[in-house]
């Protein structure tokens, strides 16, 4: 079972609730660990509570008791464990931003109250399972909070550096990142690139690095790849952060060449045509094998650029010849291994337009995807006429003031003050037709089998077109009209609580990724 692809996070409730004979593993799911994750960002909240009731154990590891804890406390009396985790201010380590750059973070304060760092909790979990030694085979174990052992964070990053060759998470050593943090002023704010500069503490030369060594930062840190601020940028040399499209799908398909055409390559590359990804055979064929050192040759023999732990293949290919270790190919727009090789419009499972369903039907039901059956056509057909009772398209999304499930940001008074109530954006026409005005309570109900309804305030606005309503997904702490404050441990409820939109969202999953359908369903809005 361990070698089979696992169940996706989005489907855990079905792994608990689905009939055992229909799932592709021995037993149903019995225990769930929520580690810094929000339940209210997933759909079918009302069914999730049913799954929580059936679990043998639920663990919440989080700086905040979170909506998970409150939902579980509402559903059951025992078998739920809260493990307080330290915040980012209470531990050091590397942190990757969404622009792929990495920063080194220093600890500001010791972990407060009973909280422990994530890596300490992870180490202790490994100890209980009996593989703590393997977990830290190459990582120093140091004393953390209360004299308890935890993995050293610099060593932890070095462990990542040792293994993650494919996406270039190898060049960002703790020493390089720390030198960047000490010398932010030498980086150009527009290009992100260091102009000169030498770290006074270590003598590290910063010149040419992009701030935070945005991945891919190929090869080992000694290669001094500067990081890649923009992907696939053929206008730059590989060692200046340039690149090209990846040869990841073979060299030809149906008689068509998938590699790059002649003349398409990153600047200064010795190979000026398309080429496959690098391995020891290619390096030998090109006559570049002897540019490896004797030590590198021992580790590189029989390997490719992703498995050569010396990093020598990458060094020779990139630094000496300006070529990309992952090959040089065309971008792929036809994804032949997806159910829809080119994206097709398929009407959502719940649609207000029954007339479009025959023309744009959804997929057939799937018996087994990531160990679970997934329904498509059955749900769509069964709800063909749901639009009559639920005529509004319901979508959900983010607010700037809150993040994710919002437990952390709604607990911060500076942010909470800016968005004090859960709301539904509704067009003036739809509001007037329903006899509701701005800032009034309404019930939003959906055709989910559990018949959920949530009580929210109206925001009558032209931001949404007639026929569509929008609800933010960061709220939690109300349940179908009831404040859940009593279900949070004393004094720990978020400052602002409100209905979670996903209490009411309906069934639906993307056929490729199993991403939950939280953006497209239908609802009715009525005055509360």
């Amino acid at each position, binding site marked *: 079972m361990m070698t089979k692809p696992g169940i996706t996070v989005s489907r855990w409730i079905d792994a608990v609730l689905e009939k055992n004979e229909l799932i592709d593993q021995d037993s149903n799911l019995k225990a769930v660990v929520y580690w810094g994750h929000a339940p209210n960002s997933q759909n079918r909240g009302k069914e999730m509570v049913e799954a929580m009731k059936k679990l043998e154990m639920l663990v919440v590891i989080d700086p905040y008791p979170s909506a998970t804890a409150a939902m579980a406390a509402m559903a059951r009396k025992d078998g739920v464990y809260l493990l307080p985790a330290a915040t980012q201010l209470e531990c050091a380590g590397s942190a990757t931003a969404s622009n792929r750059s990495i920063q080194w973070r220093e600890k500001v304060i010791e972990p407060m109250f009973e909280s422990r760092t994530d890596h300490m909790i992870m180490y202790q979990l490994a100890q209980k399972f009996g593989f703590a030694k393997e977990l830290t085979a190459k990582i120093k174990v140091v004393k953390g909070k209360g004299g308890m052992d935890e993995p050293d964070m610099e060593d932890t990053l070095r462990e990542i550096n040792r293994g993650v060759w494919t996406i270039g998470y190898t060049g960002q050593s703790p020493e390089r990142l720390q030198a960047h943090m000490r010398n932010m002023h030498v980086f150009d704010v527009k290009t992100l690139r260091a102009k000169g500069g030498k770290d006074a503490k270590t003598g590290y030369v910063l010149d040419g690095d992009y701030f935070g060594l945005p991945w891919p930062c190929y090869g080992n840190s000694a290669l001094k790849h500067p990081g890649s601020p923009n992907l696939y940028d053929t206008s730059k040399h590989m060692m200046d952060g340039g690149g090209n499209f990846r040869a990841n799908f073979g060299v030809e398909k149906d008689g068509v060449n998938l590699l790059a055409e002649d003349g398409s390559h990153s600047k200064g590359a010795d190979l000026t045509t398309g080429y496959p990804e690098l391995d020891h055979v290619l390096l030998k064929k090109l006559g570049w094998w002897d540019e490896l050192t004797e030590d590198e040759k021992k580790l590189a023999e029989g390997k490719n650029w992703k498995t050569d732990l010396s990093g020598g293949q990458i060094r020779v290919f990139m630094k000496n010849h300006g070529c990309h270790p992952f090959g040089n190919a065309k971008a792929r727009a036809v994804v032949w291994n997806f159910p829809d090789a080119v994206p097709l419009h398929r009407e959502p499972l719940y649609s207000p337009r029954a007339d479009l369903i025959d023309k744009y039907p959804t997929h057939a039901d799937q018996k087994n995807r990531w160990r679970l059956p997934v329904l498509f056509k059955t749900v769509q057909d069964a709800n063909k006429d749901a639009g009559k009772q639920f005529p509004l398209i319901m979508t959900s999304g983010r607010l*700037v*003031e809150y993040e994710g499930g919002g437990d952390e940001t709604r607990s911060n*008074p*500076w*942010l909470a*003050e*800016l968005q004090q109530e859960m709301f539904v954006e509704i067009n003036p026409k739809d509001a007037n037709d329903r006899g509701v005005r701005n800032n009034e309570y309404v019930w939003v109900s959906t055709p989910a089998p559990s018949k959920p309804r949530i009580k929210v305030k109206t925001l009558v*606005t*032209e*931001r*949404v077109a007639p026929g569509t309503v929008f609800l933010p997904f960061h709220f939690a702490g109300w349940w179908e009209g009831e404040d859940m404050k009593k279900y949070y441990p004393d004094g720990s409820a978020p400052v602002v609580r409100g209905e979670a939109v996903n209490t009411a969202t309906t069934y639906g999953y993307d056929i490729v990724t199993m991403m939950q359908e939280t953006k497209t369903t239908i609802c009715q809005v009525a005055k509360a």
Partner: protein
Amino acid sequence: MARMKFLCDAERCIECNGCVTACKNEHEVPWGVNRRRVVTLNDGLPGEKSISVACMHCSDAPCMAVCPVDCFYKTSEGVVLHDKDLCIGCGYCFYACPFGAPQFPQDGAFGMRGKMDKCTFCAGGPEKDHSADEFKKYGRNRLAEGKLPACAEMCSTKALLGGDSDVIADIYRNRVLKRGKGSEVWGWGTAYGKPEKGATPPAGAKS
């Protein structure tokens, strides 16, 4: 001597409320008191614009003119401050201010509003610089630390500029020339009137 001013570029403000949050955090302003806020016009319609508004530290400040106990004073850098020990919470300044800047910690009949609170341009109050009393009543005194207001420093799009009027007017003029639009500076005419000696208004400054 530099003349301190705020300037909000409506072409750039994205209504992220970063300035509001920075202000709240810097000065530990209580819930319900808003020294700064973001106002959005034509919300959800084409041409929607947002601006960040606080005390503009007017050249001829109407709050100063109407205050019956004369609790306001102006620093040599043009920052309008007040003395909470003198303030009687009458609310006249609130009615006089064209920007809605003065805030009161409570609501109620018979002068129960409490002492007025407003943006200090991060310049504290009459108490000794950096004293506990100053922080409690007015918040942090960043100007005395050689720093500019937290809101403008935090602004992610640099829509909100705060500082020496000559410098921020130059920045704004360069922007307007480069983008060829959006030359109207909201609030400057009301707050600062005709240009003071030495200061140059951005191109097309109005009301």
